[in-house]
């Protein structure tokens, strides 16, 4: 029992380590997302405390684009996907039209 117990414990430790790393990664992603979107969407003069309407919409779009590009990078491009990314990117450039931007494919680097 003791001999078989050892590897199971180590595997558990590894799983905990992985879970911790994934959580850290998500926190980091969120922080970078927040920073990037704020820098790109908000004016610096801070005329008022509210998020302006212009900043709001751009923020929503920025989040979608950022998360989608992250997903694409994670998967690595294939020829069909490259075409898809280009299509979605041009759709967004034309304005807020069509879908919300992020396909609801399972977004999870370590999908369990």
């Amino acid at each position: 029992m003791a001999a078989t117990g050892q590897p199971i414990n180590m595997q558990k430790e590894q799983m905990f380590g992985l879970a911790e790393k994934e959580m850290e990664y998500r926190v980091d992603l969120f922080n970078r997302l927040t920073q990037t979107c704020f820098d790109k969407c908000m004016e610096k003069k801070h005329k008022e405390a509210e998020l302006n309407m212009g900043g709001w919409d751009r923020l929503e779009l920025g989040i979608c684009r950022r998360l989608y590009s992250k997903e694409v990078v994670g998967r690595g491009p294939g020829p069909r996907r490259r075409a898809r990314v280009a299509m979605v990117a041009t759709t967004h450039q034309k304005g807020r039209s069509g879908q919300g931007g992020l396909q609801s494919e399972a977004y999870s680097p370590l999908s369990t």
Partner: protein
Amino acid sequence: MDKSMLGDLDGLPEEDKLRMAAMVDQLQIRDSLRMYNSLVERCFTDCVDTFRRKTLDKQEESCVRRCAEKFLKHSMRVGMRFAELNQGVATPD
């Protein structure tokens, strides 16, 4: 970031759940401190240009206040969207 990040951990034994919860708490504390620091730096960089006196001017003070409010609201908004997208909810247009 909160415990919803843990997803489906109900199948785990109690001690593992506690350990994961402790991990989340630690990350949360660390992230709060980091956000505070970066917020202070950001608002200072945006609002304070000169060092004429030690204390803040009226404009500088209100600018800093607005900066902090705006950033925190922004951060909450991003957090909401982030959580929604993580769960695969379709985003409204």
